[in-house]
């Protein structure tokens, strides 16, 4: 299994990390943790 990536916060920054890392390396295990009820919002 690929490396385990944990991203804390799914705002513009965190969500962009998840999307780009996934594109680059499909073997990564990526978890995106968000304390609110929604992710990746246009400001």
């Amino acid at each position, binding site marked *: 299994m690929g490396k385990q*990536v944990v991203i804390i916060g799914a705002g*513009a920054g965190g969500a962009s990390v998840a999307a780009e890392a996934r594109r680059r390396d499909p073997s990564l295990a990526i978890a995106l943790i968000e304390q609110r009820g929604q992710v990746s919002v246009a400001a």
Partner: protein
Amino acid sequence: MPYYIGDVIQEEKRLIARTPEKFRETGVDVRIDTRAEEVDEAAREVLLSDGTRLPYDILVLGTGTTPLMPGIPGEEREGVFALRQYTDALRIKSWLKQVPCRKAIIIGAGFIGMEMSEALRGRGIETVVHHRGTLPVSRWDPEFSKVVVEELQKKGVSFVTGSELRSVEEGIEHKLRLVTNHGPDEADLILMAVGVRPNAVLGKQMGLPLGKSGAIRVSFSQQTEREGVYAVGDCAETFHRVSRRWVNVPLGDIANKQGRIAGVNIGGGAMTFPGIVGAQSFKVFDLEVAATGLGEREAAEAGFDPASTLIWGNAIAGSMPGNSPLGLKLIADRATGKLLGAQAVGKAGAVSRINTLSAALWAGLSLDDAGWLDLAYAPPFSGSWDPIHTAAQTLKRKL
């Protein structure tokens, strides 16, 4: 988000760049309504609010900002909001539907306060802005801030200055009553827009070094001082290409870029974030307001010897119908003649000038360069001498 609250953007889903479901389709394990309570660095695990311990090889902090609150009694009352997150926008919009909201008070006169005054006024709500100072949007020259005040007043928004907040109480005529040094003022909604600070709680807990701004220090690759730990967006610092200093600028476009850089590096690539020049814009009713680079005070703090000029020109050719005045201020360094910053205000053309000048700052252009830039001239878009040329040549003569 102000445009969603103001019903300019009607559908909630249009605000969401990518839903949890979309992420899950790509195999990302999305956990909403879940807090990261603590990072156990020895075990390389994140402790979540549901009790799970999530192991990591690589950790990314994208913890955003925390809205500042004035710290007055009653500020936690129902109907008092801060606008920072999407969920705040939903709560405000549902409050507007739920109560007959005839009047709103906005506390704070930064750009969020300005955007929100347009959003609420646009819904037909009587709107009052309370500001502790005398002029709004302190980044801009007082002459431009006065134009903003005039625009608010023209559109029926009251602007109260020198307001010292005392408390929020239950209202009689309206739901809530704000008490200030000026006495009571009632409203059905109170929006706190006094600013934000970086939320670096987890970073601090981990002992990561913070910058002067209180944001997490990062390298150009978005890595923190700790191996395998990245930070991106509003909780992290950013390199300012003009001041050559590390700053914190909580804007979504910067967060997107930093996130992509970190994602590239985590995904096996190698990319660095080139930094920012401090470009920013907002709209308030019929006015475009924009700025880039450094103001005079920031320039002096960064060790420059700033000189400035403020001109009023034409947004398009002066002979054309529909022309409107355009205010443009330029700041440059006396010693080198280099452009340091710009501010603009007008019904049209302010943002386009600031975007051009942002590219100039990015490239480190001088006033001589800016004064002779080859710009796209045609009467519907500018005079044959653009305000950029005029301002740059005027300031050059002053140095």
